[in-house]
């Protein structure tokens, strides 16, 4: 085998990429744009609760509670319908998140010591946001009750809760690793799959296969330039995360870069494999697009925690490379841990790489008998 041929081949690949300026610009800017755009826009929590109050017989107690909600920055009172029946359209239109319905005689009951009742209605169609908002409202009411009576009646277990690794539950800290995974999938898997299958369709791949180049050299030549591109993407995405969002980097940056490259290689190998097994460019593209986008977003733990998924689905996520990369990236960035805790995830990625590569090289063996 000769290295000159490989070098010549690689030069050709680099030229292909450099010549298509438009695509190159997109490939370099897209990751940056995505991290900044989604870093700002993706928030799993809502800070403002729109409140409706139904207070058919106002008295000092309901007024006091209303005052507490009005004075709370988190709540905005958007409606005060006279009857409960008028609540329904408000919820249906999506104009209200939480409603409080006071029972008449609220203050009188409080004074008597009989339970003063109120109904706390939440829009639970979005269960997460719905129950969080109800909890916020409950806290305000509980605060009022504590102020009214001596809380000394009962005992109190006070829990000091600490959110380890992400004390403010900052969404961007959680999404950045996932976004990097998404970008790398796009650049690595999608672009290689398309580029290789195009050569296959145009017949230029056959020319390469009959050349003295070995299959692994062809794959290497195809893949290396994209690997460089992926490296540039990781660096820009991390820089954006750090400069714009101050996402913490508690662990080793070197390890993070190594892991990113490992993950890129897995994606590249996957792209090669897709191109190898599909017969047309179109099939390759559809396979790469459809096969990677939604599963990568949904099954990787990027947005939805894997621990929340049903038992049968959790093992399925193990085959998604991005899932392992996210474990590594969050581990390094948020927890500051190193290989001692992350070796399994790395090992899984290495194994995936080996399997994909072996399969891809096999299916690219010259079959021109």
């Amino acid at each position, binding site marked *: 085998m000769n290295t000159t041929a490989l070098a010549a081949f690689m030069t050709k690949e680099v030229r292909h990429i450099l010549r298509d300026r438009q695509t190159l610009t997109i490939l370099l800017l897209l990751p940056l744009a995505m991290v900044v755009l989604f870093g700002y826009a993706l928030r799993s929590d809502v800070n403002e609760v729109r409140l409706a109050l139904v207070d058919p017989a106002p008295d000092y107690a309901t007024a006091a509670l209303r005052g507490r909600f009005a004075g709370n920055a988190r709540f905005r009172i958007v409606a005060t319908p006279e009857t409960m029946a008028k609540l329904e359209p408000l919820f249906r239109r999506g104009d209200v998140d939480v409603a409080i319905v006071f029972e008449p005689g609220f203050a009188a009951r409080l004074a008597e010591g009989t339970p003063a009742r109120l109904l706390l209605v939440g829009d639970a169609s979005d269960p997460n946001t719905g129950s*969080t908002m109800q909890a916020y409202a409950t806290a305000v009411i509980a605060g009022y009750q504590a102020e009214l009576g001596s809380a000394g009646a009962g005992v109190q277990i006070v829990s000091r809760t600490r959110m380890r690794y992400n004390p403010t539950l900052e969404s961007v800290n959680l999404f950045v690793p996932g976004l990097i995974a998404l970008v790398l999938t796009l650049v690595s898997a999608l672009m290689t799959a398309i580029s290789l299958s195009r050569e296959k369709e145009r017949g230029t791949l056959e020319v390469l296969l009959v050349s003295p180049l070995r299959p692994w050299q062809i794959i290497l030549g195809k893949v290396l330039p994209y690997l460089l591109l992926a490296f540039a993407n990781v660096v820009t995405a991390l820089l954006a995360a750090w400069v714009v969002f101050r996402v913490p980097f508690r662990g080793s940056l070197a390890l993070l870069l190594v892991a990113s490259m490992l993950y890129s290689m897995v994606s590249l190998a996957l792209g090669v494999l897709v191109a190898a097994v599909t017969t047309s460019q179109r099939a390759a593209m559809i396979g790469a697009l459809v096969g990677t986008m939604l599963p990568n977003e949904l099954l990787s733990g990027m947005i939805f925690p894997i621990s929340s998924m049903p038992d049968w689905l959790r093992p399925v996520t193990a085959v998604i490379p991005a899932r392992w990369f996210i474990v590594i990236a969050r581990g390094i960035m948020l927890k500051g841990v190193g290989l001692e805790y992350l070796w399994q995830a790395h090992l899984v990625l290495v194994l995936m790489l080996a399997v994909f590569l072996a399969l891809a090289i096999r299916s690219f063996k010259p079959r021109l008998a």
Partner: protein
Amino acid sequence: MRALRFLLRKEFLQIFRDHVILGMLFVMPLGQLLILANAATFEVRSARLYVVDHDHTPMSRGLTDRLAASGRFVPTAASPSPARADQAMLARQTDAILVIPTGFERELVRQRRAEVQFILNAEDGAAAGVLQSYAGRIFAAYSAELSAQVTPTLASIGARVDLPPRRGEPIIEIRRRGWYNPELDYLDFMVPGILVVLVTVVGTLLTAMNIVREKEAGTLDQLNVTPIRRSTFVAAKLIPLWSLALLDLALGLALAHFAFGVPVRGSLALVFVAAAIYLLAALGIGLWISTIAETQQQAMFVTFSIVMIYLLMSGLFTPVRGMPVWAQWAAQLNPVTHFIRLMRAVLLKGAGPAEVAPQLAMLAVIGAVVLTLAVRQYRKRAA
């Protein structure tokens, strides 16, 4: 009109002969819906709890038991060493750590107030927040339960005793209702949204690829030298995929209802009227992509980018109202935002035409603008 009939026949023939397209239209979206809908949940299943109990009293054990009894927490490990608990969390072997200090029971009895430390792994964000509120409720319930027991104990020790709760203590009783989804079922919420995205991806991508493919094959030139009108051409391209996407949506809704138990509280007719308008916008974007892309590769790339923005900025996974103001405005221009909101309102809340009128109007406006732009962009003759 006559030409349209012949063109439509051609489009349908081509679609039904192409296995890749048929698979994309029917197998892919429905298959993904079945699997992925299960993944899109913030519901917290049992979290692994590491207990560091320095107190070893009935009350400290009682606290652990209450957490375990709730079913939300499973004590999987215990040791007196906070450091080891910490390591377990670093290694992702536990989701929560409960540290009960020495003197927990004594403090409860004497001061009527005791502190515990509760540490959650916030690496997965959303889950930690939910666990926090579960735990908070369990702590409160256990406090209430103990209140009854603690007083006699106090008396027996002979410590300074408050009077038993005086009558007339102000009590506010809160009854909670989670309307539209009392069981807090994520499937109800996510399935309609995911269905919208799948139908959108398929519709936009197939429209874009279909026309670009004719460009690449040279058949588009052949059509462009014929006297067919631009509007006829566009109609012939959009009608088949539009009707198939509607069929896709119908199948998906059937699956959502019968397989996932998603309720249909409002009018299905309303959903389909909205879908018909919405799909015009979605396919119009595909048409627009096809006018700017020269190759299927470019079409794919542009579609991928647009759909990703569509998806993440639509309020599907993360609420639009959590976004910064500029992103909320951007989300208003995204047809997916409005259609998902409408679907959820009609299916889950039973909203009627009047209540979703703003969404319908926005969909109509976006659809009209997108289609007009795309049709104007499509030229039989290159400039």
